[in-house]
């Protein structure tokens, strides 16, 4: 498969690319609005300095004309030049002629106009900020959403990295109201919610498990990301199924001019990315990542132990592959087929030769990940109605296999005696999805979005098989499978309406039903958000959001482990719901350089599920419904954010003040207790400093109040008499009665542009403050100690562009 792609890529470089045809009619409309339409038709991104098109309005009229011709028409009589690079349309201000050049040199950071000289470390070495046109492409004061953020590939590359891997999740963790939960983790806890309350979509299709390496990396390969729309307060009616947030990841699309790609080699992993056209209507993208540390450690450990009686090896790797084939049938229809496969694997092998005759082999293998394949068609019926049709299969899988093989070959035995056991366990979720999303432009001030989706869930919480050989005799094995099928149907409609230049509102509803074991559960999720520009560059927003969740993750450890199980809400359990009210105030400076935001929220979650007792790593699967209890959660708080968009120095400072509580009748004696991630204060600072054309420094500092945990301050003696020597048991303490120490972490990254690529040097945890992730009791001393996690981790990677 890989060879085929490479071959196609090479061939594609020899193919001439002609521009795509577009249809657009606009008279004196804002330039970014026109770009939005062109982007939808061509799949291209528009890349330009933020200040380039400030308040620019354009007039253009074209029917099925090449994109290049339309762009020429748009920018005639202006000093803006365009060029097509890869799947991007790059806009620049034309260089002044020598005659126009001022006699004095202007400092690069003296004015926003100097931005075009700044080098962000994009893979294609573009020197501008990337402004892609997504649903959230408009400035924050122009959209009705609260707590929404569009993240571009550029934003992700700018955030400091861990082990040289850029990560969308790490970028979003710098948003106010979002915490990682555990040091280094790629998990997200949004406004006091759980890590399973975030909907992760890859081109409109959900992914269940989004982590590699127990949460250190996310499953999203940045090389494939085009943009990400992130919603944490007001969520459009299109999205439902999770309580706290939505992360809609869109992968690359559009037809590049010619074959291009990149190869990255870091300390622990490598990646390859290929993009190219096939003819003038088809394009492909391929991105692969693999950690490769095991390729070195495995042979070394084998060599080192070659003369030892015990030969123990440990192997770990993660990999993911994204592939996408897009075809533009005409200027109205675009289709794609894409595939994602991500997997983590841990293998532990213990081999021992106790004597010349006996042999002992034991192996443990764990693997987990996602497989997703989908096809989508985007079609524009007319100038008002367009649609996106999706068919997909998505699979979450985790499994483990343990084998024990012990053979005794003694002189006293007539024949070798073999004892063997093979245990296999699998936990899968298979989803078959069809959905249709429509967009109808009712008028210049009104846009209707509506759609329907159907999902057939096939949950297999456990498939277990055991096989035994005892003293060389086969013993009857067991093979048990638990399956649970569920059907989920959803309908939604939302209308964005601009009754005046100062007011914009979005009202919608998402209705869904979830049928499991012949019982139907329902969810009605109304949404309302509105924005009022009560003064120039000011926006006051309000939102009401209700979300419904039918599946949840059973998780005991705070690490993302293969023991995590996704299980539907079945039996007498009700769907989880969250009602959220948000109020926000935004201010943008007149020069568009700064944005100030203040968002307050109150979230009331009902029927949320937790283990009744916190003893389980995985539940006893036959009776898992008996092990969970339903309760209530509340979260409230206020998020502040100041963001600088332009200039040599960009970034943001965010502060969150929040409370998150839980109440379960069957836990903590029915009393309300703070949630584990009840982080009172959170501060996130992100700085991107373009030092020169070839050098960029990124820094991110995060600090937040420590996570909560439960600890018994006292113990009691269970012995009936001293002579029986009972044990000491902790006093049942109020849940989450203690806090870990204040968490803080500084990450630094330097990107250095070279002729054929760029170096990325990063330092995770720059001042080597190992944050505590848990408290444990030292049995020897009887004292409690902190488990500290990641130390300073420098890393370096080089990305070669071709």
């Amino acid at each position, binding site marked *: 498969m890989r060879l085929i792609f490479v071959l196609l890529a090479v061939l594609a470089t020899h193919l001439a690319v002609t521009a795509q045809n577009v249809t657009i009619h606009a008279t004196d409309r804002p330039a970014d609005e026109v770009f939005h339409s062109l982007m939808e038709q061509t799949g291209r991104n528009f890349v330009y300095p933020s200040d380039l098109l400030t308040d620019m309005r354009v007039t253009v009229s074209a029917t099925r004309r090449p994109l290049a011709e339309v762009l020429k028409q748009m920018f005639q009589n202006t000093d803006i030049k365009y060029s097509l690079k890869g799947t991007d349309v790059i806009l620049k201000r034309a260089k002044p002629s020598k005659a126009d050049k001022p006699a004095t040199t202007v400092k690069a950071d003296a004015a926003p106009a100097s931005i075009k000289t700044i080098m962000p470390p994009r893979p294609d070495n573009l020197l501008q900020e990337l402004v892609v046109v997504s649903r959230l492409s408009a400035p924050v004061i122009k959209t009705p959403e609260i707590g929404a953020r569009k993240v571009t590939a550029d934003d992700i590359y700018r955030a400091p990295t861990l082990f040289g891997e850029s990560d969308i999740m790490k970028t979003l963790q710098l948003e106010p109201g979002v915490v990682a939960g555990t040091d280094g983790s790629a998990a997200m806890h949004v406004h006091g919610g759980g890590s399973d309350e975030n909907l992760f979509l890859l081109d409109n299709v959900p992914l269940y498990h989004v982590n590699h390496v127990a949460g250190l990396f996310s499953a999203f390969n940045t090389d494939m990301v085009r943009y990400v729309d992130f919603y944490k307060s007001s969520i459009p009616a299109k999205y439902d199924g999770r309580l706290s947030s939505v992360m809609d990841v869109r992968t690359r699309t559009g037809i590049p001019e010619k074959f291009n790609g990149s190869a990255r080699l870091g300390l622990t992993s490598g990646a390859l990315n290929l993009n190219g056209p096939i003819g003038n209507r088809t394009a492909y993208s391929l991105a692969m990542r693999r950690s490769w540390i095991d390729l070195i450690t495995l042979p070394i450990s084998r060599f080192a132990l070659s003369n030892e009686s015990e030969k123990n090896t440990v192997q770990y790797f993660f990999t993911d592959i994204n592939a996408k084939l897009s075809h533009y049938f005409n200027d109205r229809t675009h289709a794609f087929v894409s595939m994602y496969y991500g997997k983590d694997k841990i293998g532990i092998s213990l081999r021992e030769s106790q004597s010349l005759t006996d042999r002992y082999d034991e192996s443990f293998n764990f693997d987990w990940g996602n497989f997703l394949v989908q096809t989508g068609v985007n079609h524009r019926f007319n100038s008002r109605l367009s649609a996106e049709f999706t068919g997909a299969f998505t699979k979450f899988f985790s499994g483990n296999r343990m084998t024990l093989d012990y053979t005794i070959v003694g002189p006293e035995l007539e024949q070798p005696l073999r004892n063997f056991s093979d245990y296999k366990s699998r936990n899968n979720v298979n989803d078959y999805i069809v959905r249709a999303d429509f967009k109808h432009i009712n008028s210049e001030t009104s846009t209707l979005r509506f759609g329907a989706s159907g999902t057939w869930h096939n949950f297999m919480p456990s498939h277990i098989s055991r096989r035994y050989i005892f003293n060389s005799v086969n013993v009857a094995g067991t093979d048990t499978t638990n399956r649970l099928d569920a059907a989920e149907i959803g309908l939604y409609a939302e209308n964005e309406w601009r009754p005046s230049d100062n007011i914009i509102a979005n009202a919608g509803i998402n209705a869904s039903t979830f049928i499991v074991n012949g019982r139907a559960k329902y969810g009605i999720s109304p949404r309302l958000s509105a924005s009022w520009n009560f003064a120039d560059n000011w926006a006051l927003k309000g939102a009401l959001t209700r979300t419904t969740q039918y599946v949840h993750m059973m998780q005991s*450890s705070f690490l993302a482990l293969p*023991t995590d199980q996704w299980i539907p809400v079945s039996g007498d359990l009700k769907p989880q719901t969250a009602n959220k009210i948000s109020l926000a105030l935004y201010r943008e400076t007149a020069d568009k350089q700064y944005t100030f935001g203040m968002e307050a929220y109150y979230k009331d979650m009902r029927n949320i599920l937790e283990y009744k*007792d*916190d003893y389980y790593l995985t539940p006893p699967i036959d009776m898992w419904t008996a092990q969970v209890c339903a309760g209530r959660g509340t979260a409230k708080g206020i998020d502040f954010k100041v963001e600088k968009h332009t200039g040599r120095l960009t970034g943001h400072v965010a502060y969150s003040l929040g409370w998150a509580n839980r109440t379960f009748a069957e836990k903590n004696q029915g009393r309300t207790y703070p949630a584990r991630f009840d982080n009172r204060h959170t501060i996130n600072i992100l700085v991107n400093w373009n030092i020169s054309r070839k050098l960029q420094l990124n820094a991110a500092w995060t600090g937040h109040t420590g996570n909560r945990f439960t*600890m018994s301050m006292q113990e009691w003696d269970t012995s009936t008499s001293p002579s029986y020597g009972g044990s000491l048991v902790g006093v049942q303490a109020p849940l989450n009665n203690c806090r870990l120490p204040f968490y803080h972490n500084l990450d630094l990254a330097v990107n250095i542009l070279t002729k054929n690529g760029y170096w990325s040097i990063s330092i995770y945890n720059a001042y080597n403050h190992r944050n505590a992730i848990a408290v444990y*009791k030292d049995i020897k001393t*009887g004292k409690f100690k902190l*488990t500290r996690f990641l130390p300073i981790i420098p890393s370096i990677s080089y990305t070669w562009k071709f």
Partner: protein
Amino acid sequence: MEVLKHKIINCLALLPLLVLTACNDLYIPADTNEHTLAILAKCVVGDTVFVKVRSTISLDDKTIQSVSTDESTYPTEKIYPYQLLVNGMPVPHDYIVQQGDEIKVTAHDDILGSAYGSCTMPKPCHNVKADFKPSLVMVDSINYDGSRPTIYSVKFNGILTVEVTDSPNQHDFYSFGLDSYVDSPVLNDYELPGFNFYSGFVDLDNEPIFGEHISEFESAFGNRSSNFGCFTDRQFSGNSYKLHIQIENATIFVYPYNIDKKGKEDVGLSINLSTISPDTYKWNCFLWYSNYSLMYEMADAGLAPYMPAFSNVSTGAGIVTAYTPTYIKISLRDLVEEQLAKFLKK
């Protein structure tokens, strides 16, 4: 001067970083000295209530590390008074527990405050049937060089089957216990019984219902019920269920010169199938998880949350358990006599 000013500013800027990073690995809770009363009580139908009321121990109570077995000096053995209430009425400490009683144990100390815990005695099991099928019976004689009379050992394995019939329309919890018994007529201090029974290895791990609280993942790592004899009716609610208990290497020693000196002696297996309160089941689960589970091991390594304790006492310290036992005896005297006769014939 300007350079010095910059240096001072830089140092001041670094100060918060130094303060934030200067931390110790030892975690010291804000307050560990709030001692309370802990109540350990076991209520068994047909018996008096066993109660121990102690003080809790702080994490910094070093004395517990060098604990004495002498009750008078044992730091937690100080006797605290308690009161027993049955169905809301005070009763003497020698009260014999009845089925259906709601028992409450309260205690008070001027310094440590008050504590109470309660339980309701569950309905007993009904229609319990038991059967034992011995296998691999071997008889041997033991003669100490003729200096003492010959004694015999009857060694055997076997499968014990106990059928439990669950009460409909209620959620029941059970506890299984097995012991050996030797029923001898009253002997004086100088007389010995005719039998001595070592019940050998009782394997609860092979009965799957004792492991219903254990996930497959845990069991794959080798975690077994490990003598956890509690179970629920979740898998046979309103129906009956047969427990299969494997017994290995059980040995009955026979002293022929002592048998039946003052009447018919009996030897056999004593089965105790109790219904237990939900809290008693949770308590036993907690003990199992806090000793054997992967979560415990992960928490011990700091990779999982500290495992919260279970208690049904108001102070969070202690447990009041409730057992309504049903005893069944299976006599093995016939087996012993039959096997011994066969042996002696040889």
